[in-house]
């Protein structure tokens, strides 16, 4: 579909005159895209040079076949702002995708202006590739971003910026872009709505994630120089600025490198928690987004990480698994879930079970007792690398005591109904520990 984003100036000699002859059609001098990933939203800033006459000017802006939110349109003069008054923006009757700015100018000649608006249809996402060393002690982490344009508009030589962050949106931009009338039609206000106007702010402000379907059209590779994305924090968000400009025609995507860090120390962490993961061991790759781990300059946007391992000296790779991870703030611990594994095994066994310490009420009925369970947990590391294993147990009641029968591993209470043992078995080794869990019921809880 061909785009139509036109800007025309009509000069009006007197206020009463409607649209008159179109005088100029200025091109974009500069365009900047700020693309969001938590919502289908892009802020577009365009600079154009208008030729105004002294007096009243009418400026027509049309956006047929694009996904622009017309309620977000704004124009501001970049020079001589005191002389230029933007009186109104009119969406004329019986026309669509067209706005008319009434501008009163105290001077004639060229005036640079900035036009801002929000559009739907551009998107970006982050994805990563991790390559573990053979000993799995360190990892090379490569981050990429992929920018896609399905906005209906070609953006040539656009300064491209990407925003990481969760914004609050009331209306989907794509919905606003497709309205017949920019602000819709008035609807009768019911008394209930009226009440709401004066009560708390509109509820349900939460924004359902609007992931765009990515057009899998080929990436544009082969840049002469690899660009390094500049990153900075703004409010609660992170702004990635891609140096120079990018041309992203409608329907195309572009992959750009975001960072490449080698030698990140990583920990192979294995977890067992029946209530959470079922009867299986889940492998995690653990590190921290800090300077000690050669990271920590910026948060890491959420995305899919595919993890490979160098399997031999010739540099051949083995695929280890993938993890879809969340946004990682600076200095936050990272645990990437790579899925179930069979080479680290945790086997808890109930070795003994008994009930005891019954109490009885005045009718002779049981009103309290203890259950005493003895568990032996065997942890096998069949790998030729040392690993760290966390085994979390959950109790059915907050009334419990745990007695350790040995000092293997580290024990801690997590919360009122869970506890954790942490072990670090050597390569190809087996460890086991035993504990007695006593749970109290009825009067025995008092």
């Amino acid at each position, binding site marked *: 579909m061909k785009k139509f984003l036109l800007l025309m100036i009509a000069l009006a000699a007197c206020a009463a005159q409607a649209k008159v002859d179109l005088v100029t059609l200025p091109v974009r001098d500069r365009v*900047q895209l*700020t693309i*969001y990933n938590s919502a289908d939203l892009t*802020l577009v*800033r365009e600079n154009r040079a208008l030729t105004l006459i002294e007096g009243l000017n009418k400026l027509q802006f049309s956006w047929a076949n694009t996904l622009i939110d017309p*309620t977000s349109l*704004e124009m501001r003069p970049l020079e001589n702002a005191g002389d230029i008054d*933007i*009186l*109104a923006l*009119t*969406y*004329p*009757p019986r026309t669509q995708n067209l706005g008319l700015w009434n501008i009163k100018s105290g001077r004639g000649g060229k005036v640079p202006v900035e036009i*801002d608006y*929000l559009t739907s249809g551009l998107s970006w996402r982050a994805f990563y590739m991790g390559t573990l060393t053979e000993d799995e002690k360190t990892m090379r982490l490569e981050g990429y971003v992929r920018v896609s344009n399905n906005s209906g508009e070609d953006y040539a030589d656009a300064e491209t*910026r990407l925003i990481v*962050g*969760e*914004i*609050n*949106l*009331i209306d989907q931009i794509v919905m606003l872009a497709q309205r017949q*009338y*920019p*602000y819709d*039609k*008035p609807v009768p*206000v019911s*008394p209930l709505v*009226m009440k*709401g*106007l*004066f009560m*708390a*702010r*509109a509820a349900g*402000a939460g924004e359902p*994630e609007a992931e765009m379907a990515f057009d899998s059209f080929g990436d544009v590779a082969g840049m002469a120089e690899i660009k390094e994305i500049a990153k900075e*924090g*703004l*409010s*609660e*968000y992170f702004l990635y600025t891609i140096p120079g400009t990018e041309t992203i025609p409608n329907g195309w995507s572009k992959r750009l490198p975001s960072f490449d860090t080698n030698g990140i120390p990583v920990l192979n962490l294995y977890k067992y928690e029946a209530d959470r993961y079922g009867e299986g061991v889940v492998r995690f790759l653990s590190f921290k987004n800090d300077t000690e781990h050669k990271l920590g300059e910026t*948060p890491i946007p959420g995305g899919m990480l595919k993890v490979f391992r160098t399997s031999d000296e010739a540099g051949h790779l083995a695929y280890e698994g993938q993890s879809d991870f*969340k946004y990682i*703030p*600076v*200095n*936050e611990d990272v645990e990437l879930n790579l899925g179930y594994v069979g080479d680290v095994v945790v086997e808890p066994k109930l070795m003994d079970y008994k009930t005891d310490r019954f109490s009885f*009420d*005045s*009718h002779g009925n049981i*009103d309290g007792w203890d259950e005493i369970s003895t568990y032996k947990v065997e942890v096998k590391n069949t790998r030729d690398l040392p690993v760290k294993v966390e085994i979390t147990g959950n109790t059915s009641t*907050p*009334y419990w005591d745990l007695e350790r029968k040995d000092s293997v591993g580290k024990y801690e*209470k997590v*919360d*009122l109904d869970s506890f954790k043992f942490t072990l670090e078995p050597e390569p190809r080794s087996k460890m086991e520990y035993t504990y007695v869990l006593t749970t109290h019921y009825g009067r025995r809880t*008092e």
Partner: protein
Amino acid sequence: MNKCKWWTIVLLAAAAAQVSEARIKLVALPDRGDTVIRLDNPAATLIEEERILTLQKGVNKVDFAWNGVSLDVDSIRLTVLSHPDQVKLLNVSYPPNEQALVWELASPEALEVKARISYLLNGIDRLITYKAVADKEETQVDLKSHLVLRNFSGEDFTAARVLLNYGEAFEQGIQHEETKQLLFMKKGGVPIEKIWTFDAAELPWDPDKVSGNVGIPVTYKIKNAAESKLGENSLWDGKVRVYQDDGHDGTIFLGEDNTALVPVGEDMEVYVGDSRDIVVTQQKMQEKQINIRRNNNNNIVLYDTDEIITAKIENFKDKPAKLLVVQHIPGQWDMEKCNMEYERKDAGTLEFTVELKPQETKELTMHYHRRNVR
């Protein structure tokens, strides 16, 4: 030219020398005079228009029709402005199957009378939108407000005085199916307060156990008061879009929210977006029944609880933050021990204001008893 929805209110004055000559003799078709569009009530728009009626001596019939225009029939009023003592409105009748009514006016002599017709017109209203551009430090905003006039009433207004509930009336024409956006208010340097809020009743306690990111809602508070360069009038309800100066001669879009009407002295609260750099992990470390009381059958009839809740609050930002932590304890309760000060907002709601330095971690511990639980 598309004329398919092109109607006007037709006002016809018919002078009837005899009562039986109803609605036949058209004497005048007066033009609409001064017109006022009153938009002060968000529930309905009041139109007032003035017309000169040429009355003859005796009983006059004035026919008012509104084909193709939706108005509230019961709201139509006629006020005689000139010669009100002489001209009498005798009755109003509604002809069958017509969008019209007929006023019967009695005049003692032939008169030119100025009259005002008012009615509630559907399909025409106004919206308010706000655009706030925060500075880089997020201490103040440039606040702009636009008035959006929407006319889908079926009626063209070539020139009308538009009245809001405050401010000066202004002259504006608006065609049927036209929308106009006009600058309504512009204030620079309006101070804001930025607040992060963790409400334990609304957010997950352990973000690690949630598949998506858990964000802490971030709110901008703008006081509608003189010290904020506002406070002259209520701020109308509407959509607020918040941008921020990006430090490179541009802006980024921070988020948007709907605001309710903000009376003078009250705060406008704009939920902008979520912070993922402040993380709260809350856990219940203990919940026990104590002080158990039993009936004669030895059944528990009353008890207290002994509960401990901890919340680890981490600020991963390189800036300080003021986090409002909202906790809820139902029923009757006593705080046994708490390591932070709180304000009791109501019987079951506690608010902690936690000042966090950059990269700081704090832990909140509440040890409390719920009393006389049945």
